[in-house]
């Protein structure tokens, strides 16, 4: 009797043990197995938008039109016009890294919006160097990168649709004119569950 009960308990526990072990696994970031949600910007959306913007910007040749390449880029404001709290670095960092790797542009970390440096220590050292050498060594940015992320929601019956527009502008810092502009739209559709939230 005891043996039967023990075996029954063990048999019942096996699926939980096996299931528990198999519940978590790694997936490729931005790969085809990634979770897709309609109401949120997923990591693959940022990767797609950054890739589209970088490819388009590099192909335009706008960054090549500087006197002393590579071009120097400063990151300006990226406005979040979605209903979510997002970190725009998820978009801009990917673009920065890709541009740096391409050899076409470098981003300044000692200049930022409202005089705030991304890297205060680098800015301090730069100012100290300028004071010691009594000359300006800072290279001013050739371009600034600004943009906006917009969310558009549509519903029809139980179907929900969200479009995320990633709009970016590259402005010539000398003339104040946008020399490149890009927009990538990502639309996702899904059905709202009949029961629940």
């Amino acid at each position: 009797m005891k043996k039967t009960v023990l075996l029954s308990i063990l048999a019942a526990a096996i699926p939980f043990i096996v299931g528990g072990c198999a519940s978590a696994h790694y997936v490729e970031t931005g790969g085809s197995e990634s979770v897709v949600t309609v109401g949120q910007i997923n990591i693959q959306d940022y990767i797609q938008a950054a890739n589209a913007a970088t490819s388009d910007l590099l192909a335009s040749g706008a960054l090549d039109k500087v006197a002393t390449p590579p071009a120097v880029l400063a990151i300006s404001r990226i406005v979040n016009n979605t209903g979510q709290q997002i970190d725009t670095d998820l978009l801009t960092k990917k673009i920065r890294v890709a541009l740096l790797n391409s050899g076409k542009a470098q981003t300044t970390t000692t200049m930022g919006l409202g005089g705030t440096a991304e890297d205060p220590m680098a800015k301090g050292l730069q100012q100290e160097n300028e004071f010691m050498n009594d000359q300006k060594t800072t290279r001013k940015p050739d371009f600034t990168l600004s943009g906006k992320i917009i969310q558009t929601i549509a519903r029809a019956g139980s179907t929900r649709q969200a479009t995320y527009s990633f709009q970016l502008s590259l402005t010539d810092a000398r003339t104040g004119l946008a020399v490149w502009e890009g927009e990538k739209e990502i639309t996702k559709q899904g059905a709202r569950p009949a029961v629940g939230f």
Partner: protein
Amino acid sequence: MKTRIILSLAGMVLLAVTGCTSVNTIENAQKEGQRQMVSDQRVITDASLARKVSFVGVNQTMTPGGLLKVQIELLNLKRSLQRFSYQFQWFDASGMQINNVASPTIPDQIEGGESKFISSVAPTPACKDFRVKFIEN
């Protein structure tokens, strides 16, 4: 005879249910642009996808900044919409893969009978070769 009629009707119903649509196109006959086609090498492991979406050809060009730009023409051999994802990989002159932080798997779709182009720009001037992976969604 009766069986044929039933089968035809069943086929029509199936087409109506699955929503088969195909694309009609019109374009200029005398082309101004000349595509620089490249010979390609194909590895087909998903015969099902290959029967639905075929590769028509690959052409390439250089951007003003000296980056390789590749364009692939796809053709949907079926009369219904097909969904797939693709990813570009780039290699340098030594055949080493160049890691790109923004190298996404891009979900895409192609209407029935549609001919579609997908393209990508190499992330660095060092990129000399490419490979594109396709997977059915």
